């Protein structure tokens, strides 16, 4: 049965209520990811806020989306990275047989994690780029033009809501809601500092070495970082 205007009304009623509830709730970023996934009819969504080239914080609607971000963090490539860096939407409707090959390390890993199609839009306000909103589908399939437009509009809203969360914080500190989303990334930065001393290189190079190790041993970057911080793993041996 085709969806009539009333069904659309009912659906958007739910959508509007979900956005308002998510934005005012206890876990706004995760809840907004869920609302975005629901609105855009995709399986999952994730948000990442970047600081320079480094991941500052993030949230996701579901375990697959979380894994997609984790893989990009470990491998340093993927749709969120590209959308943030270029400021343009990134669309890969068929990750298994892409029109032009990209993300040599990330693509097979994301496929294995359950992503068939990936879409990222930059989180931006005016000329400022904060990060990216990334959507996944388990099977290949393009988003409609309307879905693309709505994805960018929702990303703008998410960016606004994140900024309004930060507006509540005192100068120099993250708002408590955002602070909770930094998560394991603290350990990644600590490990970068430790490895930089072990190898006598800068922290940027140290992060590259940590990532390479994670990739080579097929483990999440966060796990490798935790081993370094706990002194179970050194890079100068």
């Amino acid at each position: 049965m085709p969806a009539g205007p009333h069904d659309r009304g009912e659906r958007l009623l739910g959508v509007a209520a979900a956005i308002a509830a998510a934005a005012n709730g206890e876990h706004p970023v995760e809840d907004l990811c869920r609302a975005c996934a629901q609105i855009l009819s995709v399986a999952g969504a994730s948000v990442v806020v970047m600081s320079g080239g480094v991941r500052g914080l993030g949230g996701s609607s579901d375990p697959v989306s979380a894994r997609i971000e984790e893989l990009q963090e470990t491998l340093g490539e993927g749709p969120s990275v590209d959308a943030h860096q270029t400021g343009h939407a990134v669309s890969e409707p068929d990750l298994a047989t892409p029109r032009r090959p990209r993300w040599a390390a990330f693509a097979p890993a994301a496929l294995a994690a359950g992503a068939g199609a990936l879409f990222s839009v930059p989180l931006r306000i005016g000329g400022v780029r904060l990060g990216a909103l990334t959507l996944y589908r388990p099977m290949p399939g393009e988003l409609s033009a309307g879905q693309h437009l709505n994805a960018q509009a929702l990303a703008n809203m998410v960016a606004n809501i994140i900024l309004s969360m930060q507006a509540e914080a005192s100068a120099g500190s993250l708002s408590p809601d955002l602070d909770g989303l930094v998560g394991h990334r603290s350990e990644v930065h600590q490990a970068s500092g430790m490895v930089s001393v072990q190898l006598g290189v800068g922290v940027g190079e140290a992060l590259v070495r940590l990532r390479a190790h994670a990739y080579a041993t097929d483990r999440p970057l966060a796990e490798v970082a935790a081993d370094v911080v706990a002194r179970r793993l050194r890079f100068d041996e």
Partner: protein
Amino acid sequence: MTREQRIASTFVELADSLVDDFDVVDLMVLLTERCVELLDVSSAGLLLADPVGRLNLMAATDEAVETVALFQIQRDEGPCRDCFHSGLRESTTDLAAAGARWPLFAPVAARAGLRAVHAIPMRLRGVVLGSLGLFRIQPVPLEPSELATAQALADVASIAILSSRGIRDAHVLADQLESTLNSRIAVEQAKGIVAEHLGCGMDEAFGRLRLYARANQTGVTIVAQALVDGSLSTDELRAR
């Protein structure tokens, strides 16, 4: 259309405005007009604060509400003004008997023929943007379900208003967020550098950073950044 269908279609209009280019003033006019149609109130008005916290009248469905809204701004008294300052809903069933509470406002409202009032906060995450005033000419309050609908409509409109405002404050806020994240990252990296050099834990490493910063009358972030970019040696921290 049933009442539920009309409420749903209003959410559609508001939700559409969230995901398309829209005019904020149009949105506020739409919100007040729909409140009058859907909630059986006689008039509705919307007051929004400017960046320095002064209320401005943004939309009014008739002259009566325009008069009482402007009066609240000029005299700094009344339910919408109170709602904006407290962030809480303000309700009075009979303004003719509310002289004790609002000695200036109550008689003006009664002369304008308005009896019951509900002032609904326009808010997002604890930030109050303004207030939505719903008035009736009879001393009959809104039902709880009607108030819930009004608040949900106001919440969605608030996000849309904030999104449009975002453009204005975005650069400042985004810079703040980025520099805060940057300092946070630099401090964590510096903790790692110190911990590795001195063979200590992260808490002690942070303690060293703080001690050094205090002794040199500077901030932890500045010390951390100097360690990370190599302009400060960890030996300096050891010396203390």
